[in-house]
């Protein structure tokens, strides 16, 4: 296998990991808890910008061709951890504004507006993150490893992404299939009932909003370190809907399903389209990607709303109870 092919495969693997982490973050909010976060891409962007600012060094470096805030050079993994903290903090701020007082449909509208406004601010305030040109020359942590060839460094970064994906995946399993996960699903399914049981639904939504934001930021941090650049064109608001499609296709609330949906939608569709024998017209190919993504959303919502791998629900044997005449008993199904 040639070096170029290896590098291409490594790129695909990094994108699978990064998109899985992001999709899990959104699934925690939307799939498990029912929060319609149409600003999700903003938190990925926050992570990408933060890791850039924490690893690039002073803005006067590299000839001072780009302007940005902070500008320090921290060793790996501090920029990534910093990115997650910023993602969580930004989520907390947005969450405090939107989650406490607004109904879910209005929350969605506000989130969408926040996403659009954030892009305009990032483009217009040049000193924030270098405006529309964005930030570039973001260091890849694997490149600092002495004695390794470029190809080996790439695979080291694939390993870092794989470890992050594994850790986040295990965290998702632990969280979603725990008693706390039942509270989250209860918040999604029947908020009054959860409140009646003494649980605070708003607090639960807020918690997953912050955690999901941190995961989004983690995905952005890894992606920015891999591609070495980040600009507003990377996080226009429609990008959020690609993650929504991944969650819907994979299965809302299903950890494994969302990972599959993410790989299929965020990576698979983009790559598969390139091999379609339609004459190689690049304009058509780009349009086709969005058309397929939109059609997948509609198709799954219409035909298979539970997704490819539906959310797991545990079945318990029927509790002892007084049988009414004609009642044959059986099992009751509850959330896992």
């Amino acid at each position, binding site marked *: 296998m040639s070096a*170029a092919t290896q590098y291409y495969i490594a790129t695909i693997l990094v994108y699978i990991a990064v998109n899985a982490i992001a999709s899990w973050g959104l699934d925690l909010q939307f799939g498990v808890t029912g929060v319609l976060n149409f600003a999700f891409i903003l938190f990925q962007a926050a992570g990408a910008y933060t890791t850039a600012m924490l690893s690039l060094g002073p803005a006067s470096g590299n000839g001072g061709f780009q302007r940005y805030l902070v500008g320090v050079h921290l060793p790996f993994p501090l920029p990534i951890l910093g990115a997650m903290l910023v993602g969580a903090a930004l989520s907390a701020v947005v969450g405090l504004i939107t989650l406490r007082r607004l109904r879910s449909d209005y929350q969605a509208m506000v989130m969408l507006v926040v996403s659009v406004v954030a892009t305009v601010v990032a483009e217009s305030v040049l000193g924030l993150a270098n*405006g*529309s040109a964005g930030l*570039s020359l973001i260091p890849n942590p694997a490149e600092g490893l002495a004695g390794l060839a470029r190809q080996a460094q790439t695979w080291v970064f694939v390993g870092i992404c794989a470890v992050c994906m594994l850790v986040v995946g295990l965290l998702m399993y632990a969280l979603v299939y725990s008693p706390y996960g039942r509270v989250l699903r209860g918040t999604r399914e029947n908020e009054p009932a959860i409140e009646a049981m003494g649980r605070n639904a708003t607090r639960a939504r807020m918690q997953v909003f912050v955690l999901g934001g941190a995961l989004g930021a983690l995905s952005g941090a890894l992606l920015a370190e891999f591609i070495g650049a980040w*600009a507003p064109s990377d996080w226009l608001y429609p990008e959020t809907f690609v993650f929504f499609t991944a969650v819907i296709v994979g299965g809302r609330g299903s950890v494994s399903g969302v990972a599959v949906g993410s790989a299929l939608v965020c990576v698979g569709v983009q790559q598969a389209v390139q091999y379609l024998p339609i004459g190689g017209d690049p304009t058509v190919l*780009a349009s086709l990607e969005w058309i397929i993504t939109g059609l997948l959303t509609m198709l799954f919502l219409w035909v298979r709303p539970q997704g490819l791998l539906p959310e797991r629900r545990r079945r318990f044997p029927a509790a002892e109870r007084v049988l009414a005449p004609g009642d044959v008993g059986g099992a009751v199904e509850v959330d896992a």
Partner: protein
Amino acid sequence: MPRHGGFKVAGVAGALAGALAIAACGATSASSTAGAATGGSGASKGGALEVAIFHAYSGPNAAYGPEAAAGCYPAERLINAAGGILGHQLACTPVDSKGDPADAVPAANRMIAASSSLVGVLGGGSDTATSVVPLFEQAQIPVFSTTGQSAFDRTGDSYFWRILSPDAAQGSAMAAAAKKLGFTRVAALFGNDSAAQGSAPTAISGVRRLGLSLVANQTLAVGQTSYRSEAQALSTAKPQAIVTEADPQTSATYFSELSQIGQVPALITDPVSQEPTWRKAMGGAIGTGLLDRQDYAVVAYSPTTAPAYKVYTAALLASAKQVPQPSQWDSDLYSVADYDSVIVMALAMDAAHSTKPSVYNGYISKVTAPSAGATVVHTYAAGKAALAAGKSIQYVGAVGPLDFNQWHNAGNQFAIERYSGGNWAVSSVLSAAEISAASGS
């Protein structure tokens, strides 16, 4: 027991793995056909060589791709008409970078892996250059970029080549033009997009350095539906000229509203104003007559009487099959630069007697640098013949001489051009001293 609605986990995982394997195999099989892609083996004997037009064909910068194609296809036509390169035909292949780094990186990697005959790249505009140029560097494939970013002014990338001057030089030239034209009250109006922001800082500092009065300095959030308040503020400042760069939509919206409020002063623009989409939008907004009267385009000096330019326009007009409405690009400096880029690549391969990118890359500056005894050529056919005769050559292209410095940047002269009677004509040429006065260097 968990239920999965009839879908088996293994089945889904298998389908996923299969889909990804197909994609990966597509890349593997293509690249393995002719050996390692990294290091660019060139093509097998007689096979076509590929030059990728790696630009945005979708997204906000979707005009970049067709613009570069208008340079590549005429070059392809002329090279193939002259018998090709070392027995190989040349083919331009469009690849969509989508104009953002996150999409451009996998697209570039897929392109490198999937094409065994890729010998050169046109692309990496200002939107993606910093993320994809290192990939081409790693794959040892020469990339001719039209990015104006100053990050490449002193680049260490040995496979990076830039024919047009960087944005910073463009900005200084715009300020120098304002001075030369005799304006004393100048406004700066730039979009907040990356392309416009490349030249804005030096244009503004140049205006100040030359002692002109900067009466307004506006940065427009591109793509808005109205700029009435900004236009009102600018009109109140009463500038004699506006130094400006913004995308077609933004410019049209802004100047449409400015023309309703008051007079449109002289416009000192850059090569963007020579793009057909910009002229069409602005002509519709303020009228083509007024636009032609007020517009002073400051562009790299490219004498339209130059032999290479005439050859280019003839080839462009003959390439209507690949380039729709080809005449719209004949004055587009980026298209002209991309044409020269492909011709230079082809001549370098001939000079190196190799289509291998890592070999011919070292000959690029050898076929363009002025040297005693070198035969000056303006076409691929002439250059090929001279090289075959054992002569050294200097290709003087449609944009003029291409003398690359140690960082592979070729500087340009600048000129002020006016549009009249359906053509661009040089009004005056800016001297190096005039531009130095604006840049302070």
